[in-house]
């Protein structure tokens, strides 16, 4: 309303105003209007950008700062070099750690996605005894952080390591196994909510068309839930990529470490903490997450079910 009133007053100004002064008034008010409607967003955006980019700049700067200390780091390093990266690649098993991290994160993300989607589908579509109890149970279990059970888990894996060393301590498989169970609860709930929004008519229609359960699940339902698959996959990839506590308990041999555990080793020593090398490693670890985000971005848009049933 105020805009129209202002426009009306501007029109009056130009029609009645004599020459120059009328123009000045109009330009002034139009510019004020622009700032109120659009301009302030730019200011907020710039502040937010600065706020977000500052820590990243700092890590980048530390990575390229050959002195390897945080206190000597400035936002623009004085004599930038790849010295930290050289040290990282030559004196540590960084690539090995990185590969371990990727293997564990990718596999546990993919497998947990598969398991949780199947569980969510069952909870969403079928009515069976213990359905409600089952859902509450996994929610309840999820309320406690996994490392509360670290003692129990440790004891279990001591036994496993003795009996089946292939999936025991210092193997990526032990961690994958653990993370699969750990992520199940939240993912199942998240996905179940999304599955519930897919009309049941679609399942039934496919059923009448002659599709089997598997054909309905893989051919009809999964393509419609890609947004939630992308989100949960991404979240579980990121969380395993940066998981530290359990990994540090499970992986003690240098060659079995994940990037998080390995990098921590670089700064954990009191005397020769090398933050430059750490920052260099952290930068590299961030790359797959950023790439994955870019790649999955287009799936995380939703609205894919629009037009399924009347609309």
């Amino acid at each position, binding site marked *: 309303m105020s805009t129209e009133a202002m426009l009306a007053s501007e029109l009056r100004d130009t029609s009645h105003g004599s020459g120059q002064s009328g123009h000045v008034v109009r330009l002034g008010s139009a510019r004020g209007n622009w700032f109120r409607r659009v301009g302030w967003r730019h200011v907020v955006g710039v502040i937010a950008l600065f706020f977000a980019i500052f820590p990243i700049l700092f890590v980048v700067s530390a990575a390229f700062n050959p002195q390897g200390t945080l206190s000597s780091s400035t936002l623009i390093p004085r004599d930038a070099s790849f010295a930290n990266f050289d040290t990282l690649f030559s004196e540590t098993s960084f690539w090995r750690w990185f590969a371990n991290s990727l293997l564990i994160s990718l596999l546990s993300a993919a497998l947990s996605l598969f398991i949780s989607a199947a569980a969510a589908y069952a909870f969403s579509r079928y009515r069976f005894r213990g359905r409600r109890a089952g859902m509450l149970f996994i929610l309840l279990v999820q309320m406690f952080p996994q490392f509360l059970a670290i003692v129990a888990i440790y004891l279990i894996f001591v036994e496993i390591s003795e009996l089946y060393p292939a999936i025991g301590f210092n193997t990526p498989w032990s961690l994958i196994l653990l993370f699969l169970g750990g992520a199940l609860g939240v993912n199942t709930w998240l996905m179940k909510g999304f599955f519930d929004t897919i*009309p049941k*008519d*679609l399942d*039934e*229609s*496919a*059923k*009448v*068309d*002659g*599709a*089997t359960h598997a*054909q309905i699940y893989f051919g*009809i339902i999964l*393509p*419609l839930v890609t947004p939630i698959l992308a989100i949960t996959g991404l979240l579980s990839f990121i969380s395993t990529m940066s998981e530290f506590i359990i990994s540090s308990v499970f992986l003690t041999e240098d060659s079995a470490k994940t990037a998080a555990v390995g990098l921590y080793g670089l700064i954990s020593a009191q005397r020769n903490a090398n933050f430059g090398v750490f920052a260099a490693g952290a930068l590299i670890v961030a790359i797959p997450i950023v790439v994955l985000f870019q790649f999955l971005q287009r799936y995380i848009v939703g609205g*894919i*079910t*629009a*037009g*399924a*049933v*009347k*609309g």
Partner: protein
Amino acid sequence: MATVTLDKVNKQYENGYHAVHDLDLEIADGEFLVLVGPSGCGKSTALRMVAGLEDISTGVMKIGDRVVNTLSPRERDIAMVFQSYALYPHMTVAENIGYGLKIRRMDKTEIRRRVERAAEMLELGPMLDRKPKQLSGGQRQRVAMGRAIVREPQVFLMDEPLSNLDAKLRVQMRAEIGQIQHDLNVTTLYVTHDQIEAMTMGDRVAVIKSGILQQVGAPQYLYDNPANLFVAGFIGSPPMNMGMGRIIRHGEGLGLRFGSRTLALTGSVLTDHPSLGQWVDRPVAVGIRSEDMEDAGVLREAAAPDSTLVATVGLTEALGSEIVVHFDLDVPPVENEETRALAEDSGADDTGLRSNGTRFVASFAPRSRVRIGDQIEVVVDVARLHFFDPDSGLTLKG
């Protein structure tokens, strides 16, 4: 092509709710049978049992000669059109239509051929590469039909397929579905709550209420010979007028005391309803269709006083071809379980309107010039009166 036979089919849910009671139905080969009833009457459940989406509690269900009680939907060779259309949003129109064939691993060129033929029949040709969300409601409805057609199934099942369309499109699609079914000659079970759809589309209509089959028959037969008050009130628009009357001796024969007036039950009434003699001095529920009443003013000769009712016009609706006149008669309304079910279905809560008796609706010839507030004489075609037992709701037979 096949017959569908339901023999004493029951559906009782685990929580004890009895949705369908002893349903006996036989749908002939190529027949279009409409299952109609108020919402929640179990008609959709019955359809879903035929489809195999609901288990059958007891009874026998046959498609053709096969007992299908325990067969999965895919083994029954049926196609279903859902109220919501249930199109797969991530597939194009062509993929949607061909999905059932692809699942059956049919040859790709054959799928193409059938999809294109169905698309041509439904005028969907230019839409084949679009996604469902790019289509209008009517087009989505056609895709859903196409999906059923290409399968060339033994039976079509349709669950209120038109209720999501606007009124004009509904009339058009009604004709199209009827035409397609006639051309393909596929046995069809069609569920609706709209009695107009039932009347216009069905070869036969089955009226169901609270899970119990009330009557099955050709639409016109149901309209002319309703088995009970519920069918009488449900079939036909406007619904049949009903009021309580009393059979009395009148002159040489019988009469119907209807409010303050008496209608002579002449000639054919007594031969058509010989049992009326047993109802003398007992209350009966009387039904009059709106078209069986006429404004006495438009008749050439004066009507005998014992063939007319008198009322004050409450409302008129001129439709051009007829004038629909609403008026209150000084007769008590018929109140039993069936009329309550009807009132519930129409969503009517018109106790206030009926305070002066019972509201009747009549269709007069357009030359009638009645106005709101006029005192009118209404001639009743007594030969077409319907008589019901007010307790059981059943029509008086014999």
